[in-house]
């Protein structure tokens, strides 16, 4: 029972995983754990070829030191850690080489409510974190790194961070680098907060937007270092906020104390704001060839989204009418 510390009835327990422990793999510990338990993982040479689906709530899964790696294996066709539980903490791990047949293999696939990610490295995954819509969920990411994620398949590109409609995304003191094809931070959250992060293409990154809010929501960015590199995808801006017809509005839009470096060799906007909400901008620094904020093309963007929405509605109405007509004819 060496693996089981503090084994009081009903108390939270700690499971130790390692090459010299009774529990050899993280997934074996996840099988045994209950709500509120902690799983501690020791380093293993070559990494753990393992994945897990975490259904427990209030669980902590953490490396005991540096160099604890989970690699290659994905669960449920989704990712290395698939988190369905509430209030789960993931700490001190490297999650690498996630690939799935759907081409959206994630280091963490977040499907529950409230996830805390601390000091986790996401390296060479299709998506670093892919979070499903979960209206009350808050996802907090601190001290983490997203390196060499993304990639495109038949025109569909993956982002390092792809966050569905949740209440809050907060990313602090984290690094995004060398993302390919997709965006670094793609967020549908009601509120997105980015504080003291490094979000940069570097010499080889081919990312689209560094920060992309395609469907409204509030954005607050403070004291981040941003860079677009020589191999950037063809986007007009580092940060894009968009409120198409029918989406929720952009609530507040605050960019304070950010520093943007344009290494792309062409002109860039720091912020491309396709919404009615005015941006509050203060103390941002931008280098050569860069406009601080632009709303160019907003009316055209809005009209296109309106036309698109009307077409979709007309299509849906026509489909309903046609089905009704078919059913009527069948009854005759």
């Amino acid at each position, binding site marked *: 029972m060496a693996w089981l510390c503090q084994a009081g009835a009903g108390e939270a327990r700690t499971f130790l995983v390692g090459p010299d422990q009774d529990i050899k793999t993280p997934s074996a510990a996840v099988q045994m754990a209950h709500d509120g338990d902690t799983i501690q993982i020791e380093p293993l040479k070559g990494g753990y070829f393992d994945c897990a689906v975490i259904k427990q709530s209030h669980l902590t899964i953490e490396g005991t030191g540096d160099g604890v790696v989970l690699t*290659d294996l994905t669960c449920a066709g989704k990712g290395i850690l698939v988190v369905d539980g509430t209030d789960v903490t993931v700490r001190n791990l490297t999650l*690498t*080489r996630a*690939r799935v047949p759907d081409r959206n293999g994630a280091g963490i696939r977040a499907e529950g409510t409230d996830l805390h990610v601390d000091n986790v490295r996401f390296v060479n995954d299709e998506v670093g974190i892919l979070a499903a819509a979960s209206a009350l969920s808050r996802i907090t990411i601190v001290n983490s790194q997203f390196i060499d994620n993304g990639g495109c398949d038949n025109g569909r590109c993956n982002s390092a961070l792809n966050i569905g409609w949740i209440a809050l995304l907060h990313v602090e003191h984290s690094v995004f680098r060398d993302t390919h094809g997709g965006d670094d931070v793609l967020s549908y959250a009601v509120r997105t907060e980015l504080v003291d992060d490094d979000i940069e293409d570097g010499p080889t990154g081919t990312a689209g937007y560094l920060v992309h809010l395609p469907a409204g929501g509030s954005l607050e960015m403070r004291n981040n270092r941003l860079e677009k590199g020589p191999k950037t995808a063809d986007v007009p801006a580092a940060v894009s906020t968009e409120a198409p017809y029918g989406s929720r509005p952009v609530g507040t839009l605050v960019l304070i104390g950010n520093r943007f470096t344009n290494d792309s060799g062409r002109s860039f906007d720091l912020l491309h704001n396709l919404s009615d909400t005015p941006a509050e901008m203060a103390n941002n620094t931008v280098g050569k060839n860069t406009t601080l904020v632009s709303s160019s093309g907003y009316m055209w963007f809005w009209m296109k989204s309106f036309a698109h929405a009307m077409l979709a509605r007309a299509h849906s109405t026509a489909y309903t009418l046609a089905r009704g007509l078919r059913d009527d004819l069948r009854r005759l």
Partner: protein
Amino acid sequence: MTGWVRCMVLSAVLAWPVPVVYAKTILVGPDQALKFPSAADQVAKDGDTVEIEPMKGGYFDCANWHQNNLTIEGKGPGVVITDKTCEGKGLFIVSGNNVTVRNITFQRARVPDHNGAGIRSQGTNLTVDHCRFLDNENGILSNVNLTASHVIITNSEFVDNGSCSGPGCAHGIYINQVALLRVENSVFKRTHHGHHIKSRAAETVLIGNTIEDGPTGNSSYLVDIPNGGTLIMQNNTLEKGPDAENHSTAVTLGEEGVTQRTKEITITNNTFTNDMSHPTIFVRNLTATPAILKGNKLVGQIKPLDGDGKVE
């Protein structure tokens, strides 16, 4: 003990009749005492060789070989095992370890599960040399979890195998979890519905083979490595034909999800011809291990690589 007594004891020990087992050769044929391969199966022991003479119309027979280190071979061309299957599995079931099968044609295997095999491999280490597999559901099917096994196939032909009539599909060869699948100088032709080669081996090595649909083959993939694993392909001639049922890809890795480590993907000096009217992909890599494509000749509308890797 005196020298005389010692001498007597030593002589007695040396003269004691110790049973010595010699590997023997067992002959099967229309003019032999054993008329069918399955009769040889009854008398063969570990290490024996079973030699089968040709018979007109082929042997309507099947067998489950439990012996280890057995060699089963046709004496000359035209030794055919046809139609009859054992245990609902196949024509020859090889349950022993280290078995070699040579110079035999396996044809027309059908079972109710629709996975009838020319050879069903159930033991560790199988070598197949100069065999032909014609019109079976699976040419060769291996059991799951033979993790130490090496399956070696050389100089063989797989023609008109494959089926998707059952719950799953049957393939030219379908090798489950083994250590190594090595196929050399062999021909896969006109596979139907299933894949020419499907391998869950930790390492799959394909060298100098011809793997082609031809004008009437309607296979899915030429090579399917569904769970990842090392893949080395050299000097193969590959073709997807006009009736191919899967237009997407010739060679694919990880399409069912990666469940094992992929140490290396090296695809060198192969020729791949796309005879479909659709564009296709030569190698679709769904693992995170970069595929290295080098010196391949691609003819037709072909994207060389989809997924991680580089084309040199």
